[in-house]
């Protein structure tokens, strides 16, 4: 059994070149948006906008400028499926299309998925969407086909600054912790790891080094499993059914003579 594999993305060295997006699209033969007639977002250099069924990598451009634009900085982050150890999508999928692989990654089998879209609502990160060509839910596979052949995923292979690092989770965590230490020592006190420890959904097999709060990067501060609501919600439904049943029995059992 291979060791758990994943990505560690150091956002401090991302230059927003989008080589990862292009490599992902090329390798996975993902179609262009709107048949190639894409429109500009108009308020950012980010025209990909978000992850979806045909964008499995998305380089976010976070533009932080003061009102008079005298001060500012760009945060860049190549976003992707987090391949959660406890995955919300996998949990809710009713067809068994979403599976955990031998590399501890999460993959949607496109030949099994029937496009019910429950996984889109179940994902805590808004990663999954329908690919209009296949009619099925799709997302990053962490290049399962390449990994099976002993190759590195296309995005991390193409990354020119090693912002995206691929490897065993054990090695990646060590590398990431060293980098946080280095940044802290250099005065970047805001550096920290997002999703590297088990507190967040059992650990994210694609985790990040960030220098601002998660919300600044469009990441949830406290992602949870969908099943947290299963038991209380079922219990309240049963109570509702019981109340309706009792009211019904009373209504039909307490009748006067004229109700015959």
């Amino acid at each position, binding site marked *: 059994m291979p060791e758990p594999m994943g990505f560690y993305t150091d956002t401090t060295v991302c230059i927003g070149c989008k080589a990862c997006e292009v490599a992902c699209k090329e390798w996975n033969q993902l179609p262009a948006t709107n048949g190639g007639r894409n429109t500009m977002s108009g308020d950012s250099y980010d025209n990909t906008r978000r992850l979806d069924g045909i964008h499995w990598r998305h380089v976010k451009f976070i533009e932080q400028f003061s009102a008079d634009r005298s001060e500012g900085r760009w945060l860049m982050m190549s976003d992707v499926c987090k391949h959660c150890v406890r995955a*919300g999508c996998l*949990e*809710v*999928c*009713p*067809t*068994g*299309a979403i599976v955990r692989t031998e590399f501890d990654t999460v993959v949607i089998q496109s030949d*099994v*998925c*029937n*496009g*019910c*879209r*429950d996984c*889109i*609502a*179940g*994902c*805590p*990160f*808004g*990663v*999954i969407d*329908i690919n209009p060509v*296949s*009619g*099925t*839910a799709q997302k990053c596979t962490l290049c399962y086909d390449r990994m099976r052949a002993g190759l590195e995923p296309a995005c991390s292979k193409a990354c020119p600054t090693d912002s995206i690092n691929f490897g065993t989770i054990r090695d990646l965590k060590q590398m990431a912790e060293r980098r946080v230490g280095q940044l802290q020592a250099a005065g970047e006190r805001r550096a920290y790891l997002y999703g590297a420890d088990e507190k967040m959904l059992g650990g994210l097999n694609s985790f990040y080094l960030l220098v601002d709060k998660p*919300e600044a990067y*469009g*990441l*949830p*501060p*406290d*992602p*949870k499993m*969908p*099943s947290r*609501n*299963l038991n209380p*919600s*079922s219990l*309240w*439904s049963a*109570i*509702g*059914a019981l*109340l*309706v*049943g009792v*009211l*019904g*029995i*009373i*209504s*039909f059992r307490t*009748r006067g003579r*004229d*109700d015959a």
Partner: protein
Amino acid sequence: MPSTFFTEPPHWRWLIVFYFFLGGIAGGCYFLAALIDLFGRASDRPLARLGYRIAFPAVVVCGILLIVDLGRPERFWHMLLQSETWRPMFKSYSPMSFGAWGLLVFSFFAFLSFVATLGPDDRGRARARLRPPSLLGTIVAILGGLSGFFLASYTGVLLAVTNRPIWADTTLLGLVFVVSSASTSIALLLLLGSRRVFLIGGLRALQRFDIAVLVLELLSLIALVASLGSLARVWLNEWGALLAVGVVGLGIIVPLLLHLRARAPTAVVAKVAAVLVLVGGFLLRVVIVLSSESI
């Protein structure tokens, strides 16, 4: 901002809204029919028959709506069978998986009871044994009624077991849906049964039941909004206005007042009340589904 606001909508739109409404009607009408058969009087049997006759066609339409809504409708059976091994596909902790089986089980009982209502209500005939008071009919009615409750409520649990705003921020949607399913089904039976004056006794019982359920629905909706806490401010827009005016005002409070004023369940005001309850129940699904979809 809560973590549910960092997710993407699943594009569950009008087909799902109609399914939620019709699923509530199917489950609710079956439950009412079973309740009338089990606890009503012999003179109420035509009213129960009406419920069974609504439930089965409604659940057939539900199945069609769900299949059409899939990205790959021809693979609808993947919900029930594993496509490679042909073994049953069932995940007890996935409400959609549980729901697909629940829909199938309910359809089975709804079909049996539908068959029992074909032809005249002659208890001597073999098919009539599928309805109470026979032992087999009683078992069918109890199991069908329970699965009807399931069909009416699991959709609320399904929405809660996600990570979407509003849906996953409360655990009361199943409760609200099952109560609303009862109120809309009672309204439909009142409306369709009111042409037959000989059913007046059963209709009066239904009207009393409707008043009680509408009060329960109002309390459930207040509890739902309260359970959202400060998040309820996401409804300070056109969706909130629709919820307040369409669902609570026109769909609950006005029908309650009309029912209290109506001298008989066959009176025009009672029929108007029933229509308003149906409209309110539909708008409830519209608000719950589409207000989260729009975030």
